[in-house]
């Protein structure tokens, strides 16, 4: 066991963490912006946009991977354009990892933010308007503080999802040790090669990290809950 541990290349851990953090930052801002946008819309547009934004959550991640490949592959127009004009390559790069994870984590952040915004008492917002506050002041000084537990748990969920993303990431970013091999991809590679011990170590690591994440979600969303029931 000790020589297996000493032989393991730990890069998947750092790649997963870096990808998770960057993807969560992107999903955080985009999710809040999208939720704010959807709150302001009329009913019909609300349903349509809500559907589009929630899609990556419901569909298999390979669907997201498929669309991302169509978009960024060097053989397709947009990917070719990015490469020839700006020398930006998304497929099989760490950028691809981040984009794939962000697309998958975004719906989680969006839905949690939206749920948190829906909980905000509309009279608070109306009072702010009658008192002459600007819309952005209302958003940052009134809505966000009230919604913060929901936003916080959404952020942590998005981080957990981005950390564990496999399907879309492996389709877009490939499997390059040291660059795009995340923990999930490493587990798949090692298992199919028959290295159950190495795969088991990675499984243990990601289970431990995920457990800590769930504990923090429960702690944060427990704020504001008057009593936790026990049946």
């Amino acid at each position: 066991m000790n020589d297996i541990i000493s032989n393991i290349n730990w890069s998947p851990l750092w790649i997963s963490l870096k990808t998770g953090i960057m993807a969560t930052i992107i999903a955080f801002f985009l999710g809040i912006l999208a939720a704010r946008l959807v709150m302001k819309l009329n009913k019909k547009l609300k349903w349509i946009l809500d559907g589009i934004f929630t899609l990556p959550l419901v569909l298999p991640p390979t669907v997201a991977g498929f669309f991302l490949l169509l978009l960024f592959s060097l053989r397709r127009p947009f990917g070719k354009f990015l490469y020839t004009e700006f020398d930006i390559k998304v497929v099989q790069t760490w950028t691809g990892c981040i984009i794939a994870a962000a697309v998958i984590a975004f719906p989680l952040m969006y839905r949690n933010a939206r749920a948190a915004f829906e909980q905000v008492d509309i009279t608070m917002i109306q009072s702010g308007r009658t008192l002459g506050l600007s819309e952005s002041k209302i958003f940052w000084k009134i809505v966000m503080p009230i919604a913060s537990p929901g936003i916080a748990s959404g952020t942590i969920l998005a981080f957990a999802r981005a950390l564990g993303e496999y399907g879309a990431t492996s389709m877009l970013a490939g499997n390059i040790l040291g660059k795009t091999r995340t923990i999930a991809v490493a587990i798949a590679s090692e298992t199919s090669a028959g290295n159950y011990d190495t795969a088991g170590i990675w499984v243990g690591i990601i289970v431990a990290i995920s457990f800590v994440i769930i504990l923090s979600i429960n702690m944060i969303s427990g704020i504001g809950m008057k009593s936790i029931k026990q049946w």
Partner: protein
Amino acid sequence: MANGEKLCIISLLKEYGGLNMKNLKRRISSLLVLLLVICSVMGIVGCSSSKGTSSVITDTTSVEASQVAKLDKATIYVFVAASLKNSMTTIQEMYSKVQPNVTIVLNPDSSGTLKTQIDEGATCDIFFSAAMKQMNDLNTEGYIDSTSIAKVLENQVVLIKPKGGTTLVTSFDTITKAKNIALAGEDVPVGAYAREIFKSLGIYDKVMAMEINQGANVTAVLAAVSEGSNEVGVVYATDAASVASKIDIIASAPSGSLTTPVVYPVGLVKNKDASVAQTAAAKDFISYLQKDEVTSIFTGYGFSKAK
């Protein structure tokens, strides 16, 4: 609950989008109708597409088919190397004319992955590997009927690039000039063959230090190069031929670089749960694979007959 509270809740529900029983029933029934429509569309599409696999294979086997004794109804599970997928699909259709009662379930994947599946107890009757290594390992472990192992085909390892792609690489020994390469994993036969070539050329360490996109099987490596995601890749000549419109072959493996020829063996897997008819069908299919008319199908795809 007091009447006052009930009224409060009802008025709240009415406020949030007119949710009352009639409305609710109408919404649920329209959702069910929508689901029904989707399911029936799927059903129609599914049924029609399964009829569409009418084979355009010349009926040279029809004369022989009528003369061969028909086997009993059976389903056999055939695990084949990923590079055999296209040819085996054609042969599967041919065989169904000769033995219409036998259903073949094909499972194409990397031979390393298939070996792991067999180790873990997957239902399998025939193993058609891309290398002797996996077959020998399984035989040592006792999963194969040793007398049934037969060398069927040979293949070539080639270096490919996307069609129209620019690369400084001109041969296997200049592969280190590429910015990135697509290579199958060590447990995949083509990955093992590639590593053997690099070792014999003395560039193994330099290649391993390159940016390698590791494919789970040869099909993944082929897809990565066809899509232009990687500059070069190492696959079989048969795979290169199957997507000739998207890739260019740079070079074949240098002669003498592979001590083990790229040999594809087939073997009968010991399946304890197999019925008598199933094992008979499996044995029949193994001998069918070695017939001349089947070999000509394989050579049409770019394989050569094993010596």
